[in-house]
């Protein structure tokens, strides 16, 4: 019996928009995210390297940390029963200290696979000042009925 709050498959409809998440990025955000993902490369902590070697205006968020932001955004919406199946990123620009990044999402698909697993497909977009920096397509499994638990699925019953 699942007692934690959960989004159910029937709660999602194509075209639904997820409430945006706005976050003011600082140098600490970038460095903390890089170190939390064990990414020691200097463009994520060394301003001089980022500017003079990479030609960017500052250090910038690394990809694994962006993935963590997308996961947080999606599971804030689904609740802990939501289980990620697949993520696909397309990076179009970088996110720097001083940026206010906004994550927003829209439901693009709702379906049930042959094993009975309920899936929601989302397009999550990270923007800064209205400009898209990263698009992320996310496939997340959610319960189809009370008591259903995507995390209990193993092997052939999990088809991400």
């Amino acid at each position, binding site marked *: *019996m*699942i*007692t*934690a709050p959960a989004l159910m498959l029937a709660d999602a409809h194509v075209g639904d928009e997820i409430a945006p998440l706005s976050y003011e990025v600082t140098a600490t*955000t970038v460095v*903390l*995210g890089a*170190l*939390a*993902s*064990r*990414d*020691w*490369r*200097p*463009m*994520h902590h060394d301003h001089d*390297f980022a500017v003079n*070697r*990479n*030609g*960017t205006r500052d250090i*910038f*968020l*690394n*990809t*694994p*940390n*962006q*993935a*963590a*932001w*997308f*996961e*947080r955004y999606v*599971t*804030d919406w689904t609740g*802990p*029963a939501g*289980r*990620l*199946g*697949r*993520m*696909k*990123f*397309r*990076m*179009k*620009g*970088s*996110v720097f200290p001083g940026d206010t990044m906004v994550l927003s999402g829209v439901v693009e698909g709702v379906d049930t696979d042959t094993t009975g697993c309920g899936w929601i497909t989302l397009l999550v977009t990270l923007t800064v000042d209205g400009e898209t920096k990263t698009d992320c397509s996310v496939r997340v499994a959610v319960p189809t009925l009370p008591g259903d*638990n995507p*995390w209990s699925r*193993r092997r052939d019953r*999990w088809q*991400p």
Partner: protein
Amino acid sequence: MTSADGAAPSADAVTGVAEGAMDMAEGLPDDVAALIGGVQYEAVGEFPVERGYVWTSCSSVENGNPLFWDDDVADELTGGAVAPPTMLSVWFRPHHWAPGRKEEALPLQVHFDLKTRFELPEAIMSDNTIVFHEPVRPGDVLRTRQILRSVSEPKTTKLGTGRFWVIDVEYHNQRDELVGVESYTGFGYRRNER
């Protein structure tokens, strides 16, 4: 040192050419063609999956998902603690330093090999797909292996002239269960002269 990175400095410059750029190149050098589809760089993680990093990662993005903070919720939903799925690559990034290490250890070595092979000093990652399979749990010791899927013919973008390539990284746990697959699309290039 390299400028290769998933959060590309100006990846918009390659967007639009990435689609369709992954067609296998004809006339690829034999030594590179021989690598397509082969397993390279099988390795075991330098340390077991552990909760300290889970909490540090969640903290870095203010992720309050009780699955990672509340043992009762984890027991109920996942039969015990699990790591956030998006931390998959974290467990394989090498220490910045380790005793006896003579050279810098690099994640995704195939990517750097290709840069060297084609003499392309710069690189970015334009696309990244992650497929999550069995949950990763504290105490797991993961194995990884890299598989080169394709290399394009030479392409010119706003960034420069170079080649696209697709590399898969497969992750298994100590029970030989597949826990995830990452696919990276990289673009190694030489800057255009201005």
